């Protein structure tokens, strides 16, 4: 775990001084993204997103339940992520650990704080019955940058979700009410280099990670720094710029895939 990364690190850094990345991308270029929706019949909405070889499946389930006491007229949103051993030789079975928890919380905040799901439209009886929206993130193949893949798959799954009102005998089905979503873009830093959409090789040697979610107005909606390295003020500006540029492209692709 320690020796191989040092050799790998040296190699990746050497390439970087020449302006190159291990898979031939530019520093600010993301891998090929594929978005496929409605892949699971039993879910109210679902999507599989591939970013390079990384593959994430998100399913949306809904149920009728009680609201939180401090927001009696709002639906409830719950996000869970499991790093199931299917996806990587390094993932272990068992309850979610730090990495899975951070992943779920960052995706959750991205959706929640930007009010992507219009929770105020998911109330059935104030204080009594509201819709609960479950976002379940299933990592299928882990080759780096789970944050962006999980976030994008969540947005795509939500975009195609139907409120199962008929099944719960509370009216007719209707599309889950949504607002424009912010797009998450993650960069990592190693040495003095900052690259967008890290592959697994790059993630393994990275010192610091920064995820920036931006909306269609170019505003910042969420950020999360990770790993035990640091960023300068200037590097942060640069990551935000790259996240805005890539976010614009990815938003377009999401919109085309979901027809919204």
């Amino acid at each position, binding site marked *: 775990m320690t020796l191989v990364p040092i050799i790998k690190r040296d190699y990746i850094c050497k390439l970087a001084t020449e302006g190159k990345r291990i898979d031939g991308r530019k520093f600010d270029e993301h891998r090929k993204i594929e978005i496929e929706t409605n892949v699971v019949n039993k879910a109210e909405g679902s999507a599989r997103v591939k970013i390079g070889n990384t593959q994430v499946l998100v399913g949306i389930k809904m149920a009728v339940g009680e609201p939180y006491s401090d927001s009696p007229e709002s639906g409830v949103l719950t996000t*869970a992520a499991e790093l199931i*051993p*299917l996806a990587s030789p390094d993932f272990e079975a068992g309850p979610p650990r730090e990495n899975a928890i951070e992943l779920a919380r960052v995706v959750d905040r991205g959706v929640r704080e930007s009010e992507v799901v219009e929770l105020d439209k998911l109330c059935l009886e104030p204080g009594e019955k509201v819709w609960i929206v479950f976002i379940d993130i299933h990592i299928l193949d882990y080759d780096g940058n789970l944050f962006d893949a999980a976030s994008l798959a969540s947005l795509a799954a939500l975009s195609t979700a139907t409120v199962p009102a008929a099944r719960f005998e509370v009216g007719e089905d209707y599309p889950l009410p949504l607002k424009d979503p912010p797009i998450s873009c993650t960069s990592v830093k190693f040495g003095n280099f900052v690259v967008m959409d890290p592959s697994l090789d790059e993630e393994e040697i990275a010192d610091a990670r920064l995820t920036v979610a931006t909306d269609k107005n170019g505003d910042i909606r969420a950020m999360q720094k990770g790993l035990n390295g640091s960023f300068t003020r200037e590097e942060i500006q640069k990551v935000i710029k790259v996240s805005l540029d890539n976010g614009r492209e990815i938003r377009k692709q999401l919109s085309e895939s979901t027809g919204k």
Partner: protein
Amino acid sequence: MKVDIKLIDDNGKRLDGRSTEELRKIKIEAGVLHRADGSCYLEWGGNKVLVAVYGPREAIPRHTQNPLRAIVNARYNMAAFSVEDRKRPGPDRRSREISKVISEALEKIVLTEQFPRSAIDVNIEVLDAEAGTRCAGLTAAGVALADAGIPMKDIPVACAAGKIAGQVVMDLGKEEDNFGDADLPIAISPRTNEILLLQMDGHLTLEEFNRALDLAIKGCHTVSEIQKKTILDKYQSVEGVE
């Protein structure tokens, strides 16, 4: 709640139009994942199952190691969104029992003696569940093990027969499972017809059991052909590339 459903109509057709001895539609794809040593995606009727195989690799923790052979750890897991009412993530008693019987079935067929102290991990994820997931999972596991190049005596395969509306039929669907009389899922080694897995719930006379067992074995052989074709296609396509 007792529901009045006519599971077989006057023409001998079942709810989804199948005849009594007909399997649901099956689609198998091998080598679908990048990180896994072997993998398989399988659709069987409305079931969707993804399997990843890792190993052989050192078994950890150490006290689980067998000095004479590899252990096979199948882990059957249902995605939270794979069923109508969301399932809490993590293993429950049902999934742990299924993991156990699938592990035992696979251990018989893998040449475990070649890899002492090792573990072969077979991760079975049910993405969409619609009756018969353990058969779908075991069948996909057979393909994923082959895709991983794990030496085996044979490619294990599973299929169920059952009884609905008084008749013995092949491969129960969702409503047939809920409102039928008996379900008999089995797994076999198709080369020898040895039975690797067998469970039965319901009510069968001795004679019905024998018919159901024969039908399930017949189903296994049909599915086995699809498995073999999948693996051959994958192998040839790789050959072609090189």
